[in-house]
Protein backbone atom coordinates (compact mmCIF):
# COMPACT_ATOMS: atom_id res chain seq x y z
CA UNK A 1 0.00 0.00 0.00
CA UNK A 2 1.28 3.49 -0.84
CA UNK A 3 2.69 5.52 2.04
CA UNK A 4 2.70 8.96 0.42
CA UNK A 5 0.87 10.76 -2.37
CA UNK A 6 2.32 13.19 -4.90
CA UNK A 7 -0.27 15.47 -6.52
CA UNK A 8 1.65 17.16 -9.32
CA UNK A 9 5.02 16.77 -11.11
CA UNK A 10 5.95 20.29 -10.00
CA UNK A 11 5.42 19.56 -6.27
CA UNK A 12 8.40 19.68 -3.91
CA UNK A 13 6.43 17.96 -1.12
CA UNK A 14 4.43 14.72 -0.86
CA UNK A 15 1.75 13.90 1.75
CA UNK A 16 2.01 10.89 4.07
CA UNK A 17 -1.11 8.70 3.99
CA UNK A 18 0.08 6.62 6.96
CA UNK A 19 2.58 7.03 9.80
CA UNK A 20 6.13 6.85 8.42
CA UNK A 21 9.09 5.95 10.65
CA UNK A 22 12.32 7.93 10.74
CA UNK A 23 14.82 6.39 8.34
CA UNK A 24 12.13 4.52 6.38
CA UNK A 25 12.43 4.37 2.58
CA UNK A 26 9.17 5.05 0.76
CA UNK A 27 8.09 5.10 -2.89
CA UNK A 28 5.87 7.71 -4.51
CA UNK A 29 4.50 8.11 -8.04
CA UNK A 30 2.62 10.61 -10.17
CA UNK A 31 1.86 10.14 -13.87
CA UNK A 32 5.32 10.34 -15.48
CA UNK A 33 7.07 9.94 -12.13
CA UNK A 34 7.29 6.25 -11.33
CA UNK A 35 8.25 4.75 -8.00
CA UNK A 36 10.64 7.45 -6.87
CA UNK A 37 12.47 6.41 -3.69
CA UNK A 38 12.61 8.84 -0.77
CA UNK A 39 14.40 8.28 2.53
CA UNK A 40 12.32 9.92 5.24
CA UNK A 41 14.37 11.61 7.96
CA UNK A 42 11.65 12.32 10.57
CA UNK A 43 8.85 10.37 12.21
CA UNK A 44 5.89 11.56 10.07
CA UNK A 45 2.25 11.52 11.28
CA UNK A 46 -0.54 10.70 8.82
CA UNK A 47 -1.35 13.66 6.60
CA UNK A 48 1.90 15.55 7.09
CA UNK A 49 4.09 16.79 4.23
CA UNK A 50 7.61 15.62 3.42
CA UNK A 51 10.14 17.51 1.25
CA UNK A 52 11.18 15.52 -1.82
CA UNK A 53 14.11 17.84 -2.60
CA UNK A 54 16.29 20.18 -0.57
CA UNK A 55 14.43 23.52 -0.38
CA UNK A 56 16.26 26.83 0.27
CA UNK A 57 15.16 29.36 2.90
CA UNK A 58 12.50 31.82 1.66
CA UNK A 59 11.69 29.57 -1.32
CA UNK A 60 8.20 28.52 -2.47
CA UNK A 61 6.73 25.22 -1.35
CA UNK A 62 4.66 23.63 -4.12
CA UNK A 63 1.68 21.28 -3.64
CA UNK A 64 -1.18 20.71 -6.14
CA UNK A 65 1.35 22.28 -8.59
CA UNK A 66 0.68 25.61 -6.82
CA UNK A 67 2.52 27.75 -4.26
CA UNK A 68 1.24 27.04 -0.72
CA UNK A 69 3.70 29.37 1.07
CA UNK A 70 7.37 30.12 1.62
CA UNK A 71 9.98 28.37 3.73
CA UNK A 72 11.17 30.16 6.87
CA UNK A 73 14.37 28.07 6.97
CA UNK A 74 16.23 25.64 4.76
CA UNK A 75 14.51 22.24 4.53
CA UNK A 76 16.44 19.10 3.65
CA UNK A 77 15.06 16.33 1.47
CA UNK A 78 13.09 13.78 3.51
CA UNK A 79 12.16 16.21 6.34
CA UNK A 80 8.69 17.19 7.58
CA UNK A 81 7.34 20.46 6.13
CA UNK A 82 4.92 22.20 8.50
CA UNK A 83 4.43 25.34 10.59
CA UNK A 84 8.03 25.24 11.96
CA UNK A 85 9.53 25.82 8.50
CA UNK A 86 6.70 27.00 6.20
CA UNK A 87 4.43 30.03 6.37
CA UNK A 88 1.64 31.60 4.35
CA UNK A 89 2.42 34.40 1.92
CA UNK A 90 -1.12 35.79 1.99
CA UNK A 91 -3.20 37.79 4.44
CA UNK A 92 -0.46 40.03 5.80
CA UNK A 93 0.38 43.67 5.05
CA UNK A 94 3.12 42.42 2.74
CA UNK A 95 0.52 40.89 0.44
CA UNK A 96 -0.49 44.33 -0.74
CA UNK A 97 2.96 45.94 -0.50
CA UNK A 98 4.36 43.19 -2.70
CA UNK A 99 1.45 43.60 -5.08
CA UNK A 100 0.03 40.11 -4.63
CA UNK A 101 -3.35 39.52 -6.20
Amino acid at each position, binding site marked *: *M*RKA*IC*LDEKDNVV*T*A*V*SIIKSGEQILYSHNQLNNITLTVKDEV*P*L*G*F*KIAVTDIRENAPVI*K*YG*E*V*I*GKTTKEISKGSI*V*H*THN*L*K*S*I*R*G*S*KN*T*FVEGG*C
Partner: protein
Amino acid sequence: MMQEFSGYLRENGEVGVRNHVAVLSAMDNCNGIVKKISSQVRYVLPITVWYGRTQYSDNGDLTYFNSLVGLMSNPNIHSVLVVSLESVSAKKLCTAISKKTGKRAKYIAVQEEGNSISAVAKGIEICTNLLSIASEVKLEKFDLSYLTIGVECGGSDTSSGLSANPALGRIADIVINAGGKVILSETSEILGAEHILAKRAINDRVKEKLLTIVRNIEMETVKNGINISEINPSPDNKAGGLTTLEEKSLGAIIKGGSSPLQDVIEFGETPKEPGFFVMDTPSPASESMTGLSAGGAQIILFATGKGNIIGSPISPTIKVTGNPNTVEYFGPNIDFDVSSVFLGLQTLDDIKVDLLDFLIKIASGKKTRSEILGDEEIVLKPVPLAI
Protein backbone atom coordinates in the same frame (compact mmCIF):
# COMPACT_ATOMS: atom_id res chain seq x y z
CA MET B 1 -29.50 5.48 -16.70
CA MET B 2 -31.38 8.55 -15.53
CA GLN B 3 -30.96 9.10 -11.81
CA GLU B 4 -34.08 10.03 -9.86
CA PHE B 5 -34.97 10.82 -6.28
CA SER B 6 -38.31 10.94 -4.44
CA GLY B 7 -39.23 14.47 -3.41
CA TYR B 8 -42.07 16.87 -2.62
CA LEU B 9 -43.29 19.25 -5.33
CA ARG B 10 -43.87 22.81 -4.06
CA GLU B 11 -46.25 25.55 -5.27
CA ASN B 12 -43.46 27.35 -7.17
CA GLY B 13 -42.25 24.23 -9.00
CA GLU B 14 -39.27 23.64 -6.72
CA VAL B 15 -38.83 20.26 -5.08
CA GLY B 16 -38.12 19.49 -1.42
CA VAL B 17 -36.23 16.45 -0.17
CA ARG B 18 -37.90 16.90 3.23
CA ASN B 19 -41.41 18.03 4.12
CA HIS B 20 -40.91 20.17 7.22
CA VAL B 21 -43.34 22.45 8.97
CA ALA B 22 -40.95 25.07 10.39
CA VAL B 23 -41.52 27.13 13.53
CA LEU B 24 -39.29 30.19 13.27
CA SER B 25 -38.31 32.77 15.88
CA ALA B 26 -38.47 36.16 14.21
CA MET B 27 -36.23 37.42 17.02
CA ASP B 28 -34.33 35.89 19.90
CA ASN B 29 -36.86 36.84 22.59
CA CYS B 30 -39.28 34.25 21.14
CA ASN B 31 -36.92 31.27 21.23
CA GLY B 32 -38.55 29.94 24.41
CA ILE B 33 -41.97 29.88 22.77
CA VAL B 34 -40.61 28.14 19.67
CA LYS B 35 -38.97 25.47 21.84
CA LYS B 36 -42.17 24.94 23.87
CA ILE B 37 -44.32 24.59 20.74
CA SER B 38 -41.91 22.10 19.21
CA SER B 39 -41.85 20.04 22.39
CA GLN B 40 -45.65 19.72 22.24
CA VAL B 41 -46.14 18.93 18.55
CA ARG B 42 -44.43 15.98 16.87
CA TYR B 43 -42.42 16.49 13.68
CA VAL B 44 -42.16 20.30 13.56
CA LEU B 45 -38.76 21.83 12.81
CA PRO B 46 -37.86 24.53 15.35
CA ILE B 47 -35.55 27.28 14.05
CA THR B 48 -34.33 29.64 16.73
CA VAL B 49 -32.16 32.70 16.17
CA TRP B 50 -29.98 35.16 18.03
CA TYR B 51 -30.62 38.87 17.49
CA GLY B 52 -33.43 40.07 15.25
CA ARG B 53 -35.06 42.79 17.32
CA THR B 54 -33.59 45.67 15.27
CA GLN B 55 -33.31 43.86 11.94
CA TYR B 56 -36.70 44.67 10.39
CA SER B 57 -36.21 48.30 9.38
CA ASP B 58 -37.24 49.24 5.84
CA ASN B 59 -34.22 51.50 5.50
CA GLY B 60 -31.53 49.28 6.98
CA ASP B 61 -29.42 46.43 5.67
CA LEU B 62 -31.76 43.61 4.69
CA THR B 63 -29.26 40.75 4.97
CA TYR B 64 -30.72 39.35 8.19
CA PHE B 65 -34.33 39.65 7.03
CA ASN B 66 -33.59 38.26 3.56
CA SER B 67 -31.71 35.36 5.11
CA LEU B 68 -34.71 34.37 7.24
CA VAL B 69 -36.97 34.65 4.19
CA GLY B 70 -34.46 32.55 2.22
CA LEU B 71 -34.29 29.86 4.92
CA MET B 72 -38.07 29.57 5.07
CA SER B 73 -38.30 29.59 1.26
CA ASN B 74 -36.09 26.50 1.05
CA PRO B 75 -38.17 23.82 -0.72
CA ASN B 76 -37.49 21.37 2.13
CA ILE B 77 -39.97 23.44 4.13
CA HIS B 78 -43.65 22.85 3.39
CA SER B 79 -45.07 25.67 5.53
CA VAL B 80 -44.06 28.07 8.25
CA LEU B 81 -45.20 29.42 11.60
CA VAL B 82 -43.40 32.66 12.48
CA VAL B 83 -43.25 33.55 16.17
CA SER B 84 -42.63 37.21 16.95
CA LEU B 85 -42.98 39.57 19.89
CA GLU B 86 -44.95 42.08 17.82
CA SER B 87 -46.97 41.65 14.66
CA VAL B 88 -45.33 44.14 12.26
CA SER B 89 -42.10 42.15 11.82
CA ALA B 90 -44.02 38.85 11.73
CA LYS B 91 -46.33 40.09 8.95
CA LYS B 92 -43.37 41.35 6.93
CA LEU B 93 -41.71 37.93 7.13
CA CYS B 94 -44.88 36.00 6.25
CA THR B 95 -45.69 38.28 3.31
CA ALA B 96 -42.17 37.96 1.91
CA ILE B 97 -42.11 34.15 2.29
CA SER B 98 -45.54 33.68 0.67
CA LYS B 99 -44.77 36.14 -2.13
CA LYS B 100 -41.49 34.40 -2.94
CA THR B 101 -42.76 30.82 -2.81
CA GLY B 102 -46.56 30.65 -2.59
CA LYS B 103 -46.29 28.53 0.54
CA ARG B 104 -48.39 28.92 3.70
CA ALA B 105 -46.79 31.23 6.24
CA LYS B 106 -48.72 31.92 9.47
CA TYR B 107 -47.66 33.98 12.44
CA ILE B 108 -48.31 34.54 16.09
CA ALA B 109 -47.34 37.77 17.83
CA VAL B 110 -47.03 37.37 21.58
CA GLN B 111 -48.39 40.87 22.27
CA GLU B 112 -51.52 40.02 20.25
CA GLU B 113 -52.07 36.70 22.02
CA GLY B 114 -51.86 38.39 25.42
CA ASN B 115 -48.96 36.45 26.94
CA SER B 116 -46.46 33.70 26.22
CA ILE B 117 -48.65 30.88 27.54
CA SER B 118 -51.54 31.71 25.23
CA ALA B 119 -49.03 32.24 22.40
CA VAL B 120 -47.73 28.69 22.89
CA ALA B 121 -51.32 27.33 22.87
CA LYS B 122 -52.13 29.20 19.65
CA GLY B 123 -48.86 28.03 18.10
CA ILE B 124 -49.65 24.39 18.88
CA GLU B 125 -53.05 24.76 17.23
CA ILE B 126 -51.62 26.34 14.05
CA CYS B 127 -48.83 23.75 13.79
CA THR B 128 -51.31 20.90 14.20
CA ASN B 129 -53.24 22.18 11.18
CA LEU B 130 -50.13 22.80 9.10
CA LEU B 131 -48.76 19.31 9.88
CA SER B 132 -52.07 17.76 8.90
CA ILE B 133 -51.97 19.54 5.53
CA ALA B 134 -48.26 18.78 4.99
CA SER B 135 -48.80 15.07 5.58
CA GLU B 136 -51.01 14.93 2.47
CA VAL B 137 -48.17 15.83 0.08
CA LYS B 138 -47.20 12.75 -1.90
CA LEU B 139 -43.67 11.81 -2.88
CA GLU B 140 -42.97 11.92 -6.61
CA LYS B 141 -39.93 11.07 -8.74
CA PHE B 142 -37.66 13.89 -9.96
CA ASP B 143 -34.37 13.94 -11.84
CA LEU B 144 -31.18 15.57 -10.56
CA SER B 145 -31.90 18.86 -12.38
CA TYR B 146 -34.23 19.71 -9.46
CA LEU B 147 -31.35 19.61 -6.97
CA THR B 148 -29.32 22.47 -5.55
CA ILE B 149 -26.35 21.04 -3.69
CA GLY B 150 -24.22 23.05 -1.27
CA VAL B 151 -20.62 21.88 -0.95
CA GLU B 152 -18.98 22.55 2.38
CA CYS B 153 -15.91 21.47 4.32
CA GLY B 154 -15.10 21.67 8.00
CA GLY B 155 -12.62 20.22 10.45
CA SER B 156 -10.38 19.81 7.41
CA ASP B 157 -7.00 18.11 7.31
CA THR B 158 -4.76 17.13 4.42
CA SER B 159 -6.96 14.10 3.66
CA SER B 160 -9.78 16.53 2.75
CA GLY B 161 -8.01 17.97 -0.29
CA LEU B 162 -6.76 14.55 -1.39
CA SER B 163 -9.95 12.49 -1.08
CA ALA B 164 -13.22 13.89 0.38
CA ASN B 165 -13.18 17.22 -1.48
CA PRO B 166 -12.31 15.62 -4.86
CA ALA B 167 -15.11 13.06 -4.24
CA LEU B 168 -17.56 15.93 -3.69
CA GLY B 169 -16.20 17.58 -6.83
CA ARG B 170 -17.11 14.52 -8.89
CA ILE B 171 -20.68 14.60 -7.57
CA ALA B 172 -20.85 18.37 -8.22
CA ASP B 173 -19.94 17.76 -11.87
CA ILE B 174 -22.55 14.98 -12.21
CA VAL B 175 -25.32 17.14 -10.70
CA ILE B 176 -24.43 20.10 -12.93
CA ASN B 177 -24.24 17.91 -16.04
CA ALA B 178 -27.75 16.71 -15.19
CA GLY B 179 -28.98 20.34 -15.10
CA GLY B 180 -28.75 20.97 -11.34
CA LYS B 181 -27.05 23.69 -9.30
CA VAL B 182 -24.01 23.56 -7.03
CA ILE B 183 -22.95 26.29 -4.59
CA LEU B 184 -19.44 26.61 -3.14
CA SER B 185 -19.13 29.02 -0.19
CA GLU B 186 -16.61 30.12 2.49
CA THR B 187 -14.89 33.07 0.81
CA SER B 188 -11.77 33.16 3.00
CA GLU B 189 -11.10 29.53 2.05
CA ILE B 190 -10.84 30.54 -1.58
CA LEU B 191 -7.96 32.86 -0.66
CA GLY B 192 -4.80 31.47 -2.26
CA ALA B 193 -6.73 29.51 -4.88
CA GLU B 194 -8.84 32.28 -6.41
CA HIS B 195 -6.75 32.35 -9.60
CA ILE B 196 -7.90 28.80 -10.37
CA LEU B 197 -11.62 29.57 -9.88
CA ALA B 198 -11.21 32.89 -11.73
CA LYS B 199 -10.08 31.01 -14.85
CA ARG B 200 -13.40 29.16 -14.81
CA ALA B 201 -15.54 32.33 -14.69
CA ILE B 202 -17.90 32.55 -17.67
CA ASN B 203 -16.99 36.21 -18.27
CA ASP B 204 -14.86 39.08 -16.96
CA ARG B 205 -17.68 40.45 -14.80
CA VAL B 206 -17.96 37.17 -12.86
CA LYS B 207 -14.17 36.86 -12.69
CA GLU B 208 -13.89 40.36 -11.20
CA LYS B 209 -16.69 39.65 -8.69
CA LEU B 210 -14.85 36.56 -7.48
CA LEU B 211 -11.50 38.34 -7.15
CA THR B 212 -13.23 41.26 -5.39
CA ILE B 213 -14.90 39.21 -2.62
CA VAL B 214 -11.59 37.48 -1.86
CA ARG B 215 -9.61 40.74 -1.98
CA ASN B 216 -12.17 42.39 0.33
CA ILE B 217 -11.71 39.69 2.99
CA GLU B 218 -7.94 39.94 2.76
CA MET B 219 -7.92 43.75 2.90
CA GLU B 220 -10.46 43.91 5.72
CA THR B 221 -8.46 41.54 7.92
CA VAL B 222 -5.21 43.39 7.23
CA LYS B 223 -6.94 46.72 7.97
CA ASN B 224 -8.18 45.35 11.29
CA GLY B 225 -4.72 44.12 12.25
CA ILE B 226 -5.69 40.47 11.86
CA ASN B 227 -3.34 38.08 10.07
CA ILE B 228 -5.87 35.70 8.56
CA SER B 229 -3.23 33.03 7.98
CA GLU B 230 -2.65 32.89 11.77
CA ILE B 231 -6.30 32.03 12.56
CA ASN B 232 -7.00 29.93 9.48
CA PRO B 233 -5.94 27.07 9.28
CA SER B 234 -7.43 26.41 12.74
CA PRO B 235 -5.60 24.36 15.42
CA ASP B 236 -7.32 21.11 14.37
CA ASN B 237 -6.50 21.79 10.70
CA LYS B 238 -2.83 22.19 11.65
CA ALA B 239 -2.90 19.05 13.80
CA GLY B 240 -4.08 17.30 10.64
CA GLY B 241 -1.06 18.48 8.65
CA LEU B 242 -2.50 21.58 6.95
CA THR B 243 0.09 24.36 7.27
CA THR B 244 -1.11 27.43 5.35
CA LEU B 245 -4.37 28.99 4.19
CA GLU B 246 -3.21 28.66 0.57
CA GLU B 247 -2.82 24.90 1.04
CA LYS B 248 -6.23 24.62 2.70
CA SER B 249 -7.92 26.71 -0.01
CA LEU B 250 -6.33 24.79 -2.89
CA GLY B 251 -7.77 21.60 -1.36
CA ALA B 252 -11.11 23.20 -0.48
CA ILE B 253 -12.10 24.55 -3.90
CA ILE B 254 -11.80 21.06 -5.44
CA LYS B 255 -15.16 20.19 -3.88
CA GLY B 256 -16.88 22.52 -6.35
CA GLY B 257 -15.86 20.27 -9.27
CA SER B 258 -14.69 21.54 -12.64
CA SER B 259 -17.71 23.30 -14.18
CA PRO B 260 -17.65 26.91 -15.42
CA LEU B 261 -18.34 29.52 -12.72
CA GLN B 262 -21.74 30.99 -13.62
CA ASP B 263 -21.86 33.75 -11.02
CA VAL B 264 -20.82 34.96 -7.60
CA ILE B 265 -23.86 35.41 -5.36
CA GLU B 266 -24.50 37.13 -2.01
CA PHE B 267 -25.06 35.42 1.34
CA GLY B 268 -28.37 33.54 1.14
CA GLU B 269 -29.03 34.48 -2.50
CA THR B 270 -30.65 31.86 -4.74
CA PRO B 271 -28.85 30.90 -7.97
CA LYS B 272 -31.03 31.93 -10.93
CA GLU B 273 -29.91 29.33 -13.46
CA PRO B 274 -28.32 25.85 -13.43
CA GLY B 275 -24.56 25.43 -12.99
CA PHE B 276 -21.77 26.24 -10.57
CA PHE B 277 -21.92 29.24 -8.20
CA VAL B 278 -19.77 30.78 -5.48
CA MET B 279 -21.64 32.30 -2.51
CA ASP B 280 -19.90 34.97 -0.42
CA THR B 281 -20.11 33.62 3.17
CA PRO B 282 -18.01 33.46 6.34
CA SER B 283 -15.91 30.30 6.64
CA PRO B 284 -17.23 28.71 9.89
CA ALA B 285 -19.48 25.81 8.86
CA SER B 286 -22.64 26.81 10.76
CA GLU B 287 -22.66 30.29 9.24
CA SER B 288 -21.71 29.10 5.78
CA MET B 289 -24.37 26.36 5.73
CA THR B 290 -26.99 28.87 6.91
CA GLY B 291 -26.20 30.84 3.73
CA LEU B 292 -26.40 27.68 1.60
CA SER B 293 -29.78 26.68 3.09
CA ALA B 294 -31.09 30.23 2.60
CA GLY B 295 -29.91 30.04 -1.02
CA GLY B 296 -32.10 26.99 -1.59
CA ALA B 297 -29.69 24.07 -1.19
CA GLN B 298 -31.82 21.00 -0.44
CA ILE B 299 -28.74 18.96 0.47
CA ILE B 300 -25.26 19.83 1.68
CA LEU B 301 -22.29 17.60 0.94
CA PHE B 302 -19.80 18.16 3.76
CA ALA B 303 -16.19 16.99 3.55
CA THR B 304 -14.40 16.57 6.86
CA GLY B 305 -10.91 15.47 7.86
CA LYS B 306 -10.39 15.56 11.62
CA GLY B 307 -14.16 15.59 12.04
CA ASN B 308 -16.85 18.27 12.36
CA ILE B 309 -20.28 17.22 13.62
CA ILE B 310 -22.45 20.11 12.53
CA GLY B 311 -25.21 20.01 9.92
CA SER B 312 -27.94 22.35 8.69
CA PRO B 313 -31.38 21.63 10.21
CA ILE B 314 -32.98 22.60 6.88
CA SER B 315 -30.65 20.92 4.38
CA PRO B 316 -29.69 17.32 5.24
CA THR B 317 -25.91 17.36 5.56
CA ILE B 318 -23.88 14.39 4.34
CA LYS B 319 -20.53 13.96 6.13
CA VAL B 320 -17.81 12.51 3.91
CA THR B 321 -14.29 11.77 5.14
CA GLY B 322 -11.15 10.27 3.67
CA ASN B 323 -9.20 10.09 6.92
CA PRO B 324 -9.09 6.42 8.05
CA ASN B 325 -8.56 7.45 11.70
CA THR B 326 -11.66 9.68 11.58
CA VAL B 327 -13.69 6.83 10.07
CA GLU B 328 -12.68 4.75 13.10
CA TYR B 329 -13.08 7.25 15.95
CA PHE B 330 -15.70 9.61 14.51
CA GLY B 331 -17.74 6.83 12.88
CA PRO B 332 -21.19 7.66 14.34
CA ASN B 333 -20.94 11.17 12.85
CA ILE B 334 -19.75 10.05 9.39
CA ASP B 335 -22.19 9.24 6.57
CA PHE B 336 -19.79 8.19 3.80
CA ASP B 337 -16.26 6.81 3.97
CA VAL B 338 -13.81 7.60 1.12
CA SER B 339 -10.63 6.58 3.00
CA SER B 340 -10.01 3.97 0.29
CA VAL B 341 -9.27 6.89 -2.06
CA PHE B 342 -6.86 8.50 0.42
CA LEU B 343 -5.05 5.18 0.87
CA GLY B 344 -4.87 4.59 -2.90
CA LEU B 345 -7.00 1.43 -2.82
CA GLN B 346 -9.77 2.91 -4.99
CA THR B 347 -9.99 5.80 -7.45
CA LEU B 348 -12.49 8.66 -7.43
CA ASP B 349 -14.16 7.07 -10.45
CA ASP B 350 -14.54 3.84 -8.44
CA ILE B 351 -16.42 5.51 -5.58
CA LYS B 352 -18.41 8.24 -7.36
CA VAL B 353 -21.27 5.92 -8.31
CA ASP B 354 -21.70 4.75 -4.71
CA LEU B 355 -21.54 8.32 -3.39
CA LEU B 356 -24.14 9.45 -5.94
CA ASP B 357 -26.38 6.53 -4.95
CA PHE B 358 -25.96 7.56 -1.33
CA LEU B 359 -26.88 11.16 -2.16
CA ILE B 360 -30.03 9.94 -3.93
CA LYS B 361 -30.98 7.83 -0.90
CA ILE B 362 -30.62 10.88 1.36
CA ALA B 363 -32.60 12.97 -1.14
CA SER B 364 -35.31 10.30 -1.04
CA GLY B 365 -35.68 10.37 2.75
CA LYS B 366 -32.81 8.43 4.33
CA LYS B 367 -31.63 10.37 7.38
CA THR B 368 -28.10 11.75 7.77
CA ARG B 369 -26.13 11.29 10.99
CA SER B 370 -26.48 14.97 11.95
CA GLU B 371 -30.26 14.75 11.35
CA ILE B 372 -30.52 11.66 13.59
CA LEU B 373 -28.27 13.06 16.32
CA GLY B 374 -29.64 16.61 16.11
CA ASP B 375 -26.22 18.21 15.62
CA GLU B 376 -27.72 21.07 13.64
CA GLU B 377 -27.70 24.84 13.93
CA ILE B 378 -28.70 28.02 12.14
CA VAL B 379 -26.31 30.93 12.71
CA LEU B 380 -27.10 34.40 11.41
CA LYS B 381 -24.94 37.34 12.33
CA PRO B 382 -26.75 40.65 12.87
CA VAL B 383 -25.89 43.31 10.34
CA PRO B 384 -22.79 45.24 11.51
CA LEU B 385 -24.62 48.33 12.74
CA ALA B 386 -26.81 46.43 15.22
CA ILE B 387 -28.09 49.31 17.29
